[in-house]
């Protein structure tokens, strides 16, 4: 098969799964009105499938900061942090993140994807081991592949399985980076962090926690899962993204290890890419302030999450293992998932459709995510539509 034929084959496999009339490259959003509403085609749609957990995408403070940065510093940096792209805003944001986590240092990356690529491939190399949760995000897999280290998976959120694999590694456990996520993006479940920390200490391994979906969502001040368990000081490296609760684009790694800064010299995903634009950095700095002081937003988010979760569960849907902003319904077949997803869209609700092999263990998911800007009325409407669709699709 030629290179281009291979692409055609992959595309037709994907298109075969999609309902007719839907683009293979994702739903086109024509206009975006607010953190919860947009226009798709000619229809006003309720957004229930974003990562905008605190609903900050239209925050006046963040918009103002971005506008000012564009006026003062221009639209782009046109260069790497290691060359001409190292502005005072980038350094200030790093200090603010380090201060937020009470950690020694922070590195800002251009995306969250690159934060994982750059941190993982800088920390481990050929001969070392990456011991990763089986449901890890692609950026974690790709970072491990880039590193050249031996990649070993353990069963999702299963600490007994993790320990078995650590034990098997023998002496190599000392050169092992264990990688887990605060909240897993598909089912919205949380890592059993206290047990994982216990194991990483017992086996002298190093632990990296990706708080992409838990930043702003978990913990008293929104630091994430590590804060929820009071374990910030026990996790070696925390990575995360600006693209979800902070409504920007970019990523970070924080750590108490003084060696973190050395990554700047060796990490290609940090060096060989342009630094985030001034507007991105300014908006993210403003968003981080709102996030830190965002207890009310978090309460609102969790109220919405609990309301949707308990309602869908009561209706008889098979839902995520635990309540949280990501509420996934697990369907018996891709056809059923597709029908539910289509039914929701016809009723003006956008959610994420996840079909095998993208979903864990060959499941088909209709994945909702709520945010702090959703009103009780909006959530009630969603519950009502799910209720109507249950009798026509599930039963």
């Amino acid at each position, binding site marked *: 098969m030629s290179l281009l034929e291979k692409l055609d084959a992959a595309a037709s496999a994907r298109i075969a799964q999609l309902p007719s009339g839907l683009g293979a490259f994702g739903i086109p959003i024509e206009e975006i009105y607010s953190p919860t509403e947009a226009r798709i085609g000619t229809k006003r749609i309720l957004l229930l499938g974003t990562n905008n957990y605190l609903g900050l995408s239209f925050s006046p403070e963040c918009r103002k900061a971005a506008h000012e940065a564009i006026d003062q510093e221009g639209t782009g940096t046109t260069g790497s942090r290691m060359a001409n792209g190292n502005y005072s805003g980038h350094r200030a944001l790093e200090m603010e993140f380090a201060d937020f986590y009470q950690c020694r240092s922070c590195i800002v990356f251009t995306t969250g994807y690159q934060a994982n690529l750059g941190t993982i491939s800088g920390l481990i190399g050929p001969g070392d081991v990456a011991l990763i949760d089986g449901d890890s995000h692609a950026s974690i897999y790709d970072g491990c592949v880039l590193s050249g280290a031996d990649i070993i*998976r353990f069963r999702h959120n299963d600490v007994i399985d993790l320990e078995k694999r650590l034990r*098997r590694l023998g002496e190599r456990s000392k050169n092992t980076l264990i990688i887990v996520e605060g909240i897993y993006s598909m089912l919205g479940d949380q890592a059993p962090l206290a047990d994982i920390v216990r194991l990483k200490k017992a086996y002298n391994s190093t632990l990296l926690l990706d708080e992409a979906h838990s930043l702003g969502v978990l913990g008293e001040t929104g630091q994430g899962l590590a804060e929820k368990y009071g374990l910030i000081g026990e996790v070696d490296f925390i990575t995360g993204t600006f693209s979800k609760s902070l409504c920007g684009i970019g990523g970070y790694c924080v750590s108490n290890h003084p060696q973190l800064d050395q990554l700047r010299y060796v990490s290609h995903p940090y060096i060989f890419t342009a630094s985030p634009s001034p507007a991105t950095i300014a908006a993210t700095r403003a968003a981080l302030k709102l996030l830190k002081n965002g207890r009310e937003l978090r309460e609102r988010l969790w109220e919405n999450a609990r309301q949707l979760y308990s309602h869908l569960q009561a209706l008889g849907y098979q839902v995520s293992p635990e309540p949280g902003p990501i509420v996934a319904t697990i369907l018996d077949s891709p056809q059923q998932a597709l029908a539910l997803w289509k039914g929701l869209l016809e009723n003006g609700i956008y959610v994420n459709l996840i079909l095998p*092999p993208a979903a864990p263990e060959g499941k088909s998911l209709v994945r909702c995510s709520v945010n702090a800007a959703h009103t009780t009325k909006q959530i009630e409407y969603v519950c009502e539509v799910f209720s109507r669709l249950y009798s026509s699709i599930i039963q």
Partner: protein
Amino acid sequence: MVDINQEDILRLLAQRLASFANPELEITPDTNLITQLAIDSIKLLNLIMELEDHFDISIPLNALTDVVTVRDLANLVYKLKLDSK
């Protein structure tokens, strides 16, 4: 401990892989995992975890880049098992 040989590993693999495959397909050591068995990446990764547990070895995913046939996988498991002793 009972010594393992490549034949035993091949037999076990054929058994496990049969559950993924079209029942009409005869699985031989030369069966191509991807083109003939059409095993998707998640199933393959889960099979690797089962093999790790069965043989009490670590099978790094990066070692799979050279694995094309059932025999390649058996050889890899055999080599890792010998190395682990």
